[in-house]
């Protein structure tokens, strides 16, 4: 193939910059069409088409990224989008996450006998939204992309509409989400109103564009309204990433949502929030370091501690994943704070997010197999007893995933934390490091406790005689696809821990 000609072609047409997003949308729409006109055989193909389409897109985006094709480091659509290196990586990240969600979704849909067209459609739209979100360079773009994602998630969370819990979760997510949208908008409005005020220096007629706002805030950093606006925007994002005190919805929603959606919320939605946050702190909010750094530092501290402590006594695994996810938000926030002095900390965050993705999907993938059809979801820690005996494969994946989340070497999660630590060290954030350590130590308790439930509890005790295991659970059958998917996730978790080189060079830095 002649890459050069593609390059020229790509650069000549702005639309080619958002080719993956466009393709996703078309894919989503074609799924709807297929549902309408494809009849029964067409409907059965929907899931597969969605997956195959995403695989192709991932391959495409990956090729573009590897070969430095497409549009890089420049604005498109009159400054609405900006295609940074970082956002290109995040695109693949969201696609990957979406693919895995589709896979988990197929298990979920099959088990609950629910039609899947809307699930895939919305998922693909959300993914497109997330990808645009990561590239947005303008508050309007940001808002629209964000709301696409959020509203899509409202639907997905309550997708299991036969279960009142799923609906309740959707409702809660909606109200809290609506509130946070309002807060975010208020922030945007304040910033916009101030920055377009002709009486102020550095004012702009295009004040919602990040670069203009950057210039404005450089000159008006002390303005109270500007400060308020910045903080309200941060609050809106804090809802997405789930940092204290805007994390309170997380356990309930995670618990009620279908497991694949929980996974997407935990990974994609959070990563989307971080993508925005990183764009903002390395762009328009850069001049506000004096305000943002202490706020984010404090948030990081409280988030790490709260997430871990609240997870400590949690027995419901989905809530546990949610709360532990809160603590991961805290660790990531350390990286965000570090960006202020070490711009390369960005790649540490990306690496962390990738390890988090691998481990989370591994764990949630295992969880998806425990939610048995026709019965209430098995979500209690106690349900994991004797898992090793029932399904050594799943328990192996679970152990690797949880250990990676806990940050234990030689797994990828450890390297992720290490990179964050490196950044924090270089940024001299010693207090945050101390808190992170404390958090990690606390987190060992619940991660290891889970592993303990799954693996320790049926072995013969040499001294006290055998401990009788409870009656075995019904684990849904593990197909070869599951084996491959979860196996690859677990192996990648291990491989990236043992040899992080390729990924870390891919994400730059």
């Amino acid at each position, binding site marked *: 193939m002649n890459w050069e000609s593609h390059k020229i072609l790509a650069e000549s047409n702005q639309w080619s910059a958002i080719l993956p997003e466009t393709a996703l949308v078309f894919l989503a729409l074609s799924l709807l069409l297929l549902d309408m006109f494809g009849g029964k055989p067409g409907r059965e193909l929907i899931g597969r088409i969605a997956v195959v389409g995403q695989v192709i897109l991932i391959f495409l985006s990956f090729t573009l990224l590897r070969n430095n094709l497409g549009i890089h480091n420049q604005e498109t659509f009159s400054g609405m989008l900006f295609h940074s290196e970082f956002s290109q990586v995040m695109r693949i990240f969201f696609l990957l996450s979406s693919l895995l969600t589709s896979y988990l979704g197929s298990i979920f849909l099959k088990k609950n006998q629910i039609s899947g067209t809307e699930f895939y459609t919305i998922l693909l739209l959300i993914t497109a939204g997330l990808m645009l979100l990561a590239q947005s360079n303008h*508050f*309007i773009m940001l*808002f*629209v992309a964000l*709301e696409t994602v959020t*509203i899509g998630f*409202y*639907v997905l969370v*309550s997708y299991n*509409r036969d279960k*009142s*819990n799923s*609906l*309740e*979760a*959707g*409702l*809660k997510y*909606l*109200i809290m989400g*609506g*509130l946070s*949208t*309002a807060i975010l*908008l*208020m922030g*945007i*409005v*304040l910033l*916009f*109103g101030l920055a*377009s*005020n*002709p009486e102020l220096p550095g*004012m702009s*007629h*295009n*004040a*919602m564009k990040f670069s203009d706002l950057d210039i404005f805030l450089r000159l008006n950093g002390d303005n109270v309204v500007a400060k308020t606006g910045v903080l309200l925007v941060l609050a809106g994002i804090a809802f997405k990433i789930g940092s204290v005190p805007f994390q309170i919805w997380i*356990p*309930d*929603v995670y*618990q*009620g949502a279908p497991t694949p959606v929980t996974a997407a919320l935990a990974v994609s939605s959070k990563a989307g929030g971080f993508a925005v946050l990183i764009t903002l702190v390395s762009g328009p909010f850069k001049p506000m370091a004096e305000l943002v750094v202490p706020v984010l530092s404090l948030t990081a501290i409280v988030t790490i501690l709260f997430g871990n402590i609240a997870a400590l006594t949690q027995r419901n695994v989905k809530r546990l994943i949610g709360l532990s996810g809160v603590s991961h938000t805290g660790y990531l926030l350390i990286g965000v704070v570090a960006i202020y002095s070490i711009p390369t900390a960005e790649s540490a965050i990306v690496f962390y997010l990738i390890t988090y993705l691998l481990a989370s999907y591994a764990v949630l993938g295992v969880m998806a197999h425990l939610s048995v059809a026709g019965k209430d979801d098995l979500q209690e820690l106690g349900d994991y007893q004797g898992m090793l005996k029932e399904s050594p494969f799943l328990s192996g994946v679970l152990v690797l995933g949880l250990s990676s989340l806990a940050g234990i070497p030689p797994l990828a999660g450890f390297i992720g934390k290490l990179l964050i630590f490196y950044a924090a060290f270089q940024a001299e954030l010693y207090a945050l490091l101390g808190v992170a350590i404390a958090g990690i130590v606390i987190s060992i308790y619940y991660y290891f406790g889970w592993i303990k439930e799954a693996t320790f509890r049926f072995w013969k005790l040499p001294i006290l005689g055998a401990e009788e295991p409870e009656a075995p659970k019904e684990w849904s059958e593990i197909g070869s696809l599951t084996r491959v998917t979860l196996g690859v996730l677990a192996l990648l978790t291990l491989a990236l821990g043992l040899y992080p080189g390729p990924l870390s060079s891919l994400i730059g830095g």
Partner: protein
Amino acid sequence: MTIGLNEFLVVSGLLFTIGFVGLLIRRNTLVLFMCLEIMLNGVNVALVAFSQFNGTMDGNLLVFFIITVAAAEVAVGLAILVALFRKRQTVYVQELNALKN
């Protein structure tokens, strides 16, 4: 007295606050939806005012998006609420707390 930017902003702030307080104290989910709408409308007021007084169109532009989004949000919200009402026979948030702790 002339109505300037500040007056608009005060109204906007009031709307926003009323919405927020409503969210805090009201228990009926439908009312909560309305409160959310009020908050968003508060934002809209401010946007329009800023656009007007600062002479840019961006604010007006955003307002349309907000209205669209708000509509979508409420549509989804009502759908969920109806489905939930079928299951639980209530719209009061203090009774919609099966998911907790």
